[in-house]
């Protein structure tokens, strides 16, 4: 008999496959905080910068929104996560900073130390 656990296992495997096929493991994952607090601090514009960059040909990036991690006074926050490396966490990201992150970090692999949390 198929149990609820079996059904869930299958669904989870499908979900994980979908995520991986979008480049979860092979790319730089960029998470932009998009809770009410982050949006109020201006994260929509930041998200837009990354979206535009991808639309304009930036590759090997997995862009995702995320909820609030709780770091209110440093919002908007953006994380760049790569398998096997220490996750990079940027605070107070403005659209200008986001453009810099695209150019320097995502394209050239340079971590911008002065904006780290």
């Amino acid at each position, binding site marked *: 008999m*198929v*149990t*609820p*656990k079996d*059904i*869930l296992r299958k*669904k*989870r495997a499908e*979900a*994980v496959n*979908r*995520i991986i096929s979008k480049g979860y493991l092979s790319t730089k994952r960029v*998470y932009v*905080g998009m*809770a*009410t*607090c982050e*949006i109020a601090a201006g994260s929509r514009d930041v998200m837009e910068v990354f979206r535009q960059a991808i639309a304009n040909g930036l590759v090997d990036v997995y862009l*995702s*929104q*995320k*909820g*609030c*991690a*709780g*770091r*209110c*006074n440093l919002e908007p*926050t953006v*994380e760049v*996560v790569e398998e*096997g*490396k*220490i*996750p990079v*966490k940027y605070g107070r990201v403005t659209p200008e900073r986001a453009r810099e992150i695209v150019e320097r970090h995502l394209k050239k*692999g*340079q*971590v911008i130390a002065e904006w780290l*949390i």
Partner: protein
Amino acid sequence: MADLRKDNNVKEVHYKLTLCDGPTCIHNQSKQLHQVLDAEIKNRGVQNVSIHLSGCLGMCKKGPILIVNPGYTMYGNVKAADIPEIVQSHLVEGKPVARLTIIEDHLYNRFFRIFGDVDFFGKQMRITLRNCGIIDPENIDDYLSVRGYEALAKVLTNMKPQDVIAEVKKSGLRGRGGAGFPTGLKWEFTAKAVNGDKYVICNADEGDPGAFMDRGTIEGDPHTVLEGMIIGGYAIGAKKGIVYIRAEYPLAIKRLEKAMDAARQCGFLGKNILGTDFSFDIEIRLGAGAFVCGEETALIHSIEGSRGMPRPRPPFPAVSGLFGKPTLINNVETWANIPVVILDGGDWFSSIGTETSKGTKVFALAGKVRNTGMVEVPMGTTLREIVYDIGGGIPNGKKLKAIQTGGPSGGCLPEQYLDTQIDYESLAKAGSIMGSGGMIVIDEDSCMVGLAKFFIEFTQDESCGKCTPCREGTKRMLEILTRITRGEGRPGDIEKLERLGGMIKKSSLCGLGQSAPNPVLSTIKNFRAEYEEHIHQKKCRAGQCAAMLSYTIGERCVGCGACKRVCPAGAIEGARKEKHVIDAAKCIRCGQCFDVCKFNAVSKA
């Protein structure tokens, strides 16, 4: 792993070590371990390593715990004798010591992989907020990938409703809305009640000024709350759930709706959940933002379409709730804990926290503190750890004056209570309450009378008016406080406030009235001198009560005329390049001269 050395981000890998600094690990010599580790790293001249201390990581049986990032390698039962091997093999040669690594697939603390090296997060332990800021809240795939809905599947596969309730009881979980009633008992009462249909309600009517824990939880991880509710429905035998959320949270509502649609499509919600004969669906009801509707009986009235007013209990909602049917009502944070209780087990959950309060609590840390934000700490953490270790202390070199917990129903604790452990009983003993999780740090620039007045203004405004003590009593208290802050306080006012406050507490119908005087009574108890100064000397030491201030211009004045130009009352006189003077009779004490002076020549007292 060895490839990590060739990491092209940096020439050398920066290792970030996290050492568990929880009570059990400390008992197991983690402090000594820290010293040995530090010495070993220095001795071998290993560069680019930093050590961070964390709060309890919840793996006490395997403590002391050491985590090495990148890679999130976790070492358990670490002995001082193991340290040289770890340092040499892992930090120098880049090869983790397989013999000592442990693999944990707990739900909590997943945020650690990403945020573990930031001090703000180090002392935290995340159960409720385990996925907040980690996953995409609008994508059910993300939730599924972090073991989402596994607790539901487990419950439906091999747990009877009474097993679920037993597990929740074992966990020691208590209501996170503020009152702290044991959740398992509530579930049991509702399960036993027999009267046709039953309902499950999620109370997301977050009303405390400055509190945003529920919003953060729903916006960051809506599926967790839904999963908790579905499990609750199964446990008590309900078919219908309602999320009562305030209309001021549009994004949270949108994400909940999206999550519900996705859950229905996947078969987690609706008819025949996961192929079983259990059916359960959830709908959203919007509240219009009345504070009193966070009180469960008022909330139920509001859902029924009546005016949001409380009624006497008993009967409790567990027996007669929504439409007179047995109703299980829990707060957002409580629901979010349920999947963890089921998957990691009640025994594990009850190993976190203090004797009487288990698990963690989310706080919205705000006010005069460097790092404001949403924090989740194990019960038993002290206020000092929250304000200084997580919050980073008070900015601008100011002194801490008090910590306000519990919002308009809570109290102000002065500095001597900094080492109070956070649990329901200790906070109550100290004269405040746990509440739903607002925490405001107050420095010496705040006037305690003004603060009490702010909260009474709020509760007075939000009193539904049903019972006289609350409706009239808070109004009178507000009048007296307004008078005191205007410099018109009379001898005997303090005693009057105390008498009135005690009366309101004793004779009000619901929690709103019963707790409304708390901010006043606790500030009188702990800061009586400040009240007395206001009344007898007409002095506000924080310089916040405008009516009691007088502005004067001192010797530093260079006669620039900036204050004269800005003064709306024309109260400042003086020739150019000569010292100016304020006419106290004309001065309206707006403080603009003080703000505009570049030479710090204006003083207020």
